[in-house]
C-alpha cells in the first residue's frame, strides 16, 4: 500500500513540476507576442506568434490546401514567403524544386511565424472557407463509384468556378488513425450554391474507404474549398474538347451544367474513357445535356469490350478516339481530367494534332 502511495505521489509531483516548467517556458520563451502577416501587400492580419504559418493562417480563416493536416508529409501547402520566413528547413526540401526555392516558395506547415511576415498567396484562396455539410443523398453510379450530394447549412453557400475542387476530411475511424483531407472535384452546377455533388470512386485509401464503407445519408462531414485553377475558361468561344476517365467525369459535368445555365453556345465534345459498358454512368443526365446544350456530344470509348456487350460505340483508349475524331486543330480548347498517365498521353496526342499547349487545361489526380 505504502509503495503504491509513494509511487503515485512521486510520479504525479514530478510530472506536475515538469508540466509547470513547460507551461512557464511556453509563456515566456515560446511567446513571440503578436505579429503581423501581410498577404499580397494588401491585407494585414495580426496573429499570435510561435505557431506554424499554416495554422496561423487557418486561425484567420484563410485555408491553404493541405492533405496531411500540417505534418509535412504531403507538400501541398506551398506559399510564397517574401520576408520573415528564415532559411529553408530540411523538412521542406523533399517537396521543393530548385526553381521554387529560388522563388521563395515554402511549405507553410513547417515555417513558424517568429517575426512579421510578408507572403503571397493566390487571390482566390481568400474565397476558401471551411464548411460542415450534411450528406443528403448517396447514389451508386457503378459498384465502385458513388455520387454524394452535400447540402450546406441554411444561410451558408459556396461560390465556386466550374472545374474546381473541395477537400473532404476523413476523420479517425476504425482502421484509420489519422485525419486526412482528400481533394474531390465538384460535379454540380455552380448556379446552385446551396449544395455540391462529389463523385468518389473506391480505391481502398483512407478517404475513399471512409466514404464508401462508413458514410451514410444524414451524416455530417467537414469540407473546405473551393480550390484549383482547372476552371472553365471564357476568354474565347472556340470549340471545346473534353476528356475524362473514371471520376474525372465530375469537373466536366460541372462545366457542362455551367454552359447550360449560362446559355453558352460553344461546340463541345466530351470523350469519356472506360473499360466496359458497366463502367459508364449518369448517361441519362448526359443525354439530357446533349438535348439542352447548343452543340454537345458525348463520346464514350471502351477499352475492354466483349462480344456479349453489343457495343457499337468507340473502342480502345480515349487517345484512339481523339485521334480519329479531331480533324482540324484550329480554335480548339481542351479540358482534361483523370490519371497522370492518361493526361500525359492525351496531351501528346492533342499536341500532335496541332492544338496549342496553352489551350490545354488539365487536372491530374
Amino acid at each position, binding site marked *: 500500500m505504502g509503495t503504491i502511495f*509513494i*509511487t503515485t505521489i*512521486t*510520479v504525479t509531483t*514530478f*510530472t506536475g513540476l*515538469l*508540466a509547470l*516548467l*513547460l507551461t512557464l*517556458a*511556453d509563456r515566456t*520563451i*515560446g511567446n513571440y507576442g503578436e505579429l503581423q502577416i501581410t498577404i499580397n501587400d494588401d491585407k494585414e492580419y495580426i496573429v499570435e506568434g510561435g505557431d506554424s504559418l499554416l495554422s496561423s493562417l487557418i486561425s484567420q480563416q484563410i485555408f491553404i490546401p493541405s492533405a496531411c493536416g500540417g505534418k509535412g508529409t504531403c507538400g501541398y501547402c506551398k506559399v510564397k514567403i517574401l520576408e520573415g520566413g*528564415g*532559411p529553408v*528547413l*530540411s*523538412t521542406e*526540401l523533399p517537396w521543393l524544386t530548385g526553381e521554387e526555392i529560388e522563388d521563395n516558395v515554402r511549405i507553410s506547415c*513547417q515555417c*513558424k511565424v*517568429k517575426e512579421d511576415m510578408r507572403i503571397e498567396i493566390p487571390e482566390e484562396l481568400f474565397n476558401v472557407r471551411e464548411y460542415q455539410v450534411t450528406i443528403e443523398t448517396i447514389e451508386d453510379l457503378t459498384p465502385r463509384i458513388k455520387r454524394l450530394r452535400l447540402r450546406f447549412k441554411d444561410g451558408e453557400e459556396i461560390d465556386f468556378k466550374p472545374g474546381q475542387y473541395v477537400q473532404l476530411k476523413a476523420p479517425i475511424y476504425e482502421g484509420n488513425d489519422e485525419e486526412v483531407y482528400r481533394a474531390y472535384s465538384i460535379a454540380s452546377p455552380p448556379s446552385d450554391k446551396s449544395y455540391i455533388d462529389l463523385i468518389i470512386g473506391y480505391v481502398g485509401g483512407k478517404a475513399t474507404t471512409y466514404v464508401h464503407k462508413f458514410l451514410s445519408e444524414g451524416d455530417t462531414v467537414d469540407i473546405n474549398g473551393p480550390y484549383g485553377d482547372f476552371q472553365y475558361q471564357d476568354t474565347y468561344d472556340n470549340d471545346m474538347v473534353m476528356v475524362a476517365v473514371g471520376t474525372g467525369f465530375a469537373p466536366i459535368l460541372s462545366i457542362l451544367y455551367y454552359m447550360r445555365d449560362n446559355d453558352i453556345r460553344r461546340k463541345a465534345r466530351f470523350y469519356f474513357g472506360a473499360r466496359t459498358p458497366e463502367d459508364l454512368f449518369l448517361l441519362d443526365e448526359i443525354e439530357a445535356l446533349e438535348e439542352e446544350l447548343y452543340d454537345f456530344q458525348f463520346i464514350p470509348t471502351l477499352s475492354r469490350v466483349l462480344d456479349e456487350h453489343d457495343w457499337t460505340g468507340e473502342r480502345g483508349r480515349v487517345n484512339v478516339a481523339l485521334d480519329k475524331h479531331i480533324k482540324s486543330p484550329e480554335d480548339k480548347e481542351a479540358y482534361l481530367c483523370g490519371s497522370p498517365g492518361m493526361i500525359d498521353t492525351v496531351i501528346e496526342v492533342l499536341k500532335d494534332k496541332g492544338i496549342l499547349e496553352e489551350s490545354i487545361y488539365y487536372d491530374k489526380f
Partner: protein
Amino acid sequence: MIELNPFIIFFAAIFTNNMIFSYFLGMCSFIGVSKEIPTSLGLGQAVTFVLTFTTILNYILYHSILVPLNLEYLRFIVFIISIAAFVQLLEMVVERYFPNLYYALGIFLPLITVNCAILGVSLFMVIREYTFLQSLGFGVGSGIGWTLAIVAMAGARQKIKRTKLPRGLEGPGITLIITGLMALAFIGFSGIVQIQ
C-alpha cells in the same frame, strides 16, 4: 565493476557497443531519416546533443533523488518523462535564442523525444553502475556512434536509390538487411574491449 577510463567507454560506445549495431536501439528514426546524408547528419548531431544532456540530467535525477528515496524502480517512467520534457524545453530555447542551431538541428528535436536509444543510454548507465564521468563518456560516445551508423546507412541508401530492387524490399526492408550486414561488420570490433 572494473574501473574503466571514461575515454575507453567513450570509444567503446562508438565502435564496440554501438547503439544501432550492437543493441538495435533507436531504429525508428534510423530507418525513417536515413535517406540522405545531410539530413541524417543533422539528426545524428541532434541525438548526440540530446544524449549528452539527458545522460547528465538523468544521472543527477537518479543519484540525488531516486536513490536516496529508495525509488530506483521508478527510473523507467522518470527517465522517459524527464527526456520528453527536456527535449521540449530544449527545442523552445534553441528556437528562440539560437536560430542557426535551430535550423541545423532543432527541427529534428521532436523526432527524437521518443528515440529509445536515448532512454537506453540512461538505463544502461544505471545497470552498469557508471560513475558521472563514465556516464558522460558513454552518453557522448553513444551519440557519436549513432551518428556514425545513420550517416553510413544514408551513404549506402543514396547509392541504393539508383539500383533496381525487388519491390517488397524497397525502403525499410533493404535498410534492415543492410543494418544487419553492417552489424556483422561491427561485431568484429566487439572483442576489443568489454564495458559491461
